C-alpha cells in the first residue's frame, strides 16, 4: 500500500498504522506519541498527541477525513495522503493537546528525576508552552510507594496507560491498574499490593513522564550529570542488555536500552535493574548514542570528540590533505 506523509511516499504492508508508516520514513515526519508504545499490544489512543490530518482517504475514496485522526490507531489505505508537520492546523491542534496534558501537571521539573529525559518536557518545549491558562486548583494526590523500589507521583501522571499494559502483558496476574474515572482517575495497585514480579521495574522505563520513578535513583543525581554506557551481563531471566548511567566510578542507575523513539529495545528484569550497581558486574560495551540536542549530551566530551573525528574524516574525503602526510 502506498501512503504519502508530508510529501514523502512509502510502501507499507496492509494493517500498518499511519504512525508506524511515518516512523518507517524517519523522524522528520513521525508524529510524537505519549501513550503509543510499539512493544505493548493495544497501547495508544489515549493522549491524542499523534494526531494527523488525512487530506485524501484513499485512491478508491479520495474524500478527506473530516477531522484530525489519531495516527497510532488509524490504519493506512492505498493512496492515502497524510499531513503532519506541514499542516499548520495540526501543529496548532497539537499545541492545544499539549496544553491539555499540562492542565494537571504540577510542573515540578526542578524536583522531578525524569527531567532531561521527559517526553512531556520535550513536547512542551517544542511547542513553546511553559505556561498554562488553567486557573483552577490542580488535582493532588499523595505519593505512593509501589513496592520498595518504585515511587508513584500521581500528580505528574498523564494517564497514558503504558504501565498498565506492561503490568498486564509482561507480568502474570494483574495487580496494577487505573481506578476511578475522569479527573479522579488514578494509577493504583490492587489494595496497595506490592508488585512483586521479575519484570515489574519496566513500568519505570515506559513512563513518559516522572510519575513512576526508580527509588534507588531518587534524587541521586540529575540525569545530565550522569554518563550513559551500554553494557551487558549473563542474566538467567532477561537478555541482560542494559544501559548504565555512570558518574565517576559509580553506577547510579540501570535502565533498559531505548531506541530513537524512546522505546525500550528489550525489557530487563529487576535483578539487573536494582541489584547490580557495580561496574564489575557488567561488561561495558561503550558509550550509548545520545541525541546531540539532548541535555544529556551536555559535557560528554568523548562523544563530541567522536563527532569531530567523523567530521574530519568527512573533510579529508572532500579532498583535504591528510594530517600525517608531509608535503
Amino acid at each position, binding site marked *: 500500500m502506498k501512503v504519502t506523509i508530508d510529501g514523502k511516499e512509502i510502501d507499507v504492508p496492509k494493517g500498518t498504522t499511519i504512525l508506524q508508516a511515518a516512523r518507517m520514513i524517519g523522524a522528520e515526519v513521525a508524529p510524537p506519541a505519549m501513550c503509543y508504545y510499539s512493544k505493548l499490544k493495544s497501547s495508544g489512543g489515549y493522549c491524542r498527541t499523534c494526531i494527523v490530518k488525512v487530506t485524501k482517504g484513499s485512491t478508491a475514496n479520495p474524500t478527506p477525513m473530516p477531522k484530525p485522526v489519531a495516527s497510532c490507531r488509524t490504519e493506512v489505505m492505498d493512496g492515502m495522503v497524510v499531513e503532519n508537520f506541514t499542516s499548520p492546523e495540526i501543529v496548532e491542534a497539537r499545541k492545544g493537546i499539549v496544553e491539555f496534558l499540562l492542565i494537571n501537571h504540577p510542573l515540578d*521539573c*526542578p524536583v522531578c528525576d525524569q527531567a532531561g529525559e521527559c517526553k512531556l518536557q520535550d513536547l512542551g518545549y517544542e511547542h513553546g508552552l511553559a505556561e498554562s491558562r488553567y486557573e483552577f486548583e490542580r488535582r493532588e494526590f499523595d505519593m505512593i510507594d509501589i513496592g520498595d523500589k518504585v515511587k508513584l507521583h500521581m500528580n505528574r501522571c498523564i494517564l497514558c496507560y503504558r504501565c498498565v499494559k506492561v503490568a498486564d502483558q509482561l507480568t502474570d496476574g494483574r495487580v496494577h491498574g487505573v481506578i476511578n474515572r475522569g479527573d479522579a482517575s488514578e494509577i493504583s495497585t490492587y489494595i496497595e499490593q506490592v508488585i512483586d514480579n521479575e519484570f515489574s521495574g519496566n513500568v519505570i522505563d515506559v513512563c513518559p513522564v516522572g510519575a513512576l520513578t526508580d527509588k534507588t535513583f531518587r534524587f541521586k543525581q540529575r540525569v*545530565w550529570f550522569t554518563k550513559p554506557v551500554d553494557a551487558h551481563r549473563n542474566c538467567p531471566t532477561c537478555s541482560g542488555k542494559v544501559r548504565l548511567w555512570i558518574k565517576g566510578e559509580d553506577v547510579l542507575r540501570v535502565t533498559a536500552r531505548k531506541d530513537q523513539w524512546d522505546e525500550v529495545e528489550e525489557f530487563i528484569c529487576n535483578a539487573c535493574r536494582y541489584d547490580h550497581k557495580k561496574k564489575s558486574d557488567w561488561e561495558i560495551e561503550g558509550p550509548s548514542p545520545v541525541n546531540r540536542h539532548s541535555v544529556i549530551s551536555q559535557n560528554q566530551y568523548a562523544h563530541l570528540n567522536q563527532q569531530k573525528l567523523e567530521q574530519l574524516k568527512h573533510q579529508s574525503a572532500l579532498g583535504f590533505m591528510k594530517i600525517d602526510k608531509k608535503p
Partner: protein
Amino acid sequence: MQLTTRSKVVSNKQLSFAERIYLPALLKGMFITLSHLFKKKVTILYPEVKREHAPVYRGQHVLKRDENGAERCTSCGMCAVACPAEAITMESGERKKGEEHLYREEKYAAKYEINMLRCIFCGLCEEACPKEAIFLTDRIVPTEFEREDFIYGKDKLVELVDKRVDVSKRQTPEVLAFKKLEGMRHNVLYTKKLTTKSESKS
C-alpha cells in the same frame, strides 16, 4: 631596504653642557614626583574604604531563603549545567517530615559547592535558576592562603535567617517586567499556594 616607516636615524650629536651635567633633567624629574604629592590619590585604603559598585555588580554568590526562612534551592542542577566554568557541584537530599520550615520543596541541596577560583562571575547561574535561589551580590570574595578555602560550601553561601542579604538592587525594572510575564504566573501561584498551606497549618 626600508623595512618600517618608524625607524629613527641615530645621530652622534655632541651633548651640550647643560645636558652633560644631568642636573636639570634630574631636577625636572624630582619636580614631577613632588607635584604628585599634592594631587588627588588614585588608590583607596581597602578594606577600610570601599569603592562603590554598579547596582548590578556580580560578586560573591548567595543562596536565598524565602519569606518563611526555608531554603529556596531545590538542587535542580540548572546552575551547574549553565556554568561555563563548571564551578558548581551539588548533591541532593530528600526532605523528611518536620523539615518543612528548613527547605521549601521535597528535594533540597544537601551539599552545594562553588569553586570561587573556577568561577568567572558571569551570572549565568543566576539567570538559569528557576527558583530565584542563587544571586550574585556586591560582596567581594576575600583572599585566602589555601586553595581548599576557595571552595565555598553551604555554610558560606546560604544567607542567615536573621542576617538577610539584600539583592533588591539586582531587580532592575527589566527583571521585574520579565517576572510579571503571563508565562511566569505559575511560579507566583505556587508560592501563594505554599504560603496559604503553611498558614492554614499553623
